[in-house]
């Protein structure tokens, strides 16, 4: 099975990657494609919270940094790991990638919780869920424990 692990450079996307690794059977997964999508018209086309290093105005370097970090999670796990950087609208590109690679699963992170998540619709994870050609694993942050 070809699995797509999407990253938007957020820590939650790293958690999603680790979550996949925590339960999936590496002998069943043939290939992993780590996909980052650069959004050319957004204020910050790609923000990388995952790797060290400054951006010198290059959002491609930022996307590469995030993809490298996520790919690092699966290093030595078994499946072949591809790193892909795409450009355009995040949800569209993830879905397109899934079709192109004939993916069996898409792993995305969703939400930091809080007000903005409850009020605003149209997030990438939601759109991926709606239109994906295969099952989608949406990894949400664990709720904070009440004391």
């Amino acid at each position, binding site marked *: 099975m070809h699995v797509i692990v999407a990253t938007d450079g957020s820590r939650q996307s790293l958690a999603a990657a680790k979550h996949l690794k925590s339960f999936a059977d590496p002998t069943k997964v043939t290939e992993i494609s780590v996909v980052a999508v650069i959004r*050319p018209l957004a204020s910050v086309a790609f923000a990388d919270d995952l790797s060290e290093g400054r*951006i010198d105005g290059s959002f491609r370097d930022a996307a590469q940094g995030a993809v490298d970090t996520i790919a690092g999670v699966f290093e030595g796990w078994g499946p072949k790991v*591809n790193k892909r950087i795409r450009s355009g609208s995040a949800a569209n590109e993830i879905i397109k990638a899934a079709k192109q690679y004939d993916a069996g699963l898409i792993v995305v992170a969703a939400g930091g919780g809080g007000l903005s998540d409850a009020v605003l619709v149209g997030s990438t994870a939601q759109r991926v869920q709606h239109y994906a050609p295969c099952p989608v694993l949406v990894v949400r942050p664990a709720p904070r424990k009440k004391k």
Partner: protein
Amino acid sequence: MFDNRLARRWGQGMSDTRAIDTDLDDDGGLKRSITGKQLFFYTLGDVLGSGIYVLVGLVAAAVGGAFWIAFALGVTVAAITGSAYAELVTKYPQAAGASLYVNKAFGNKALTFLTTVSFLAASMAATGSLATGFSSYFAELWDAPPPLLVSLVFLAVLVVINFIGITESVVINMLMTFVEVSGLIIVMITGIWFIAQGDADFGVLVDIDTTGSYGNPALAVLAGIAFSFFAMTGFENTANVAEETIEPHKNFPRSLVTGMIVAGIVYVLVSMAAALTVPTDTLADSPAALLEVVKTGILPISEGFMTTLFTIIALIAITNTTLVTVVTQPRILYGMAKEDVVPGVFAKIHPTRRSPWIALFFSGAVVAALLVIGNLVPEVEGTPLVERLALVTVVLLLAIYALVIVCCLKLRGRDEDERTYRANTPLLYLGIVGNLAILGFSIYDDPTSLLWCAALLGVGGVLFLAEYFFGNKGTGSRAPDLDDVKGV
């Protein structure tokens, strides 16, 4: 680190043989998304929206019936500057734009900082001017709410839209550009219709007003260029998408310069149509001058319908351009925070929306302050806010444009390969002279604009000092502590 990057760039894989296909995968190389055609429309939309709808009246007042000359000359200077941008973008295809070029050419931190802050200030003033322009057109639809409130709500909506991230759509950008162009085509058709009726007095097209405040024709035209120049700006924002343009060496020069030339032709035709159909005095007195052309009722369509349609088109045009400026400001602040020259909070990315929300809301707040202050002081100064802020934008941008051309010349022979686009050198020198001449006149004509420039640059200065005294070194490039990211 550097070696890794180099390896990545050349697609030669890395130490881990498993992680192959870094660059050259089965997608056929790096997947970029902006085509030459989209870049053309991005340029055109960005340039056309800023000003022609707002500033025609001012320019007509300064020059007289021949104000198309001002648009023609202004767009020429801008297109030459655009060719310098095109050359630099093909060498350094990154989003940072002018700051990056200045840094490469001079390597002087203070100058780079000043350029960046000037660009930020210009962008903020432009947003202010556009928001004010929006409110004057909006009043045609519904004049009950006070203009200041309309501007502020407009600004707030755009900030929220940017926060949510709807600005990502290239398709929407193209659609809005089509609408923009259609509005100007209505003006042109009106002009042609008028000529066909045989009522046109072509003498007005060579009429330069020498009785006004400028006295001689050369100064009157120069004043017109200075006022119209706001309508030429916006093309510098195309650097935003430089990195994501397919085959930038080929597409960037072509799309950028063609976009400017098409914008120039549209401007000249629209100015001629406006001059022919509406008395210059009426244009000069109108806050939404192009609307006067439609109101003449020359076209055999209900005037009320045309006015409403045209107003909506103008509002969309202004919105399109303002969106780009609203997107650009937080990007600049984000870049500066990463460089540790302004406080690190501006590099804060919203966890779900992935937008630099503090930088975004801060920029919005500064523009809102500009609008409020500008509405309080015009009684004292006697200059309308839209004109004031447009001039501030122009003054700052002209200085940057001249500097960018200098950078372009200074960086000749560096980082070039056979694919690098080369702008015409004599034209570049002409461009420096042109930009400085307009800059000189703008300052001479309205020295108060320098105060506004200084105030806006001061915002950058304050942020720098805040970072210098209270900031943590390295907020921008802090090594993330990833151990706390739980897998489950």
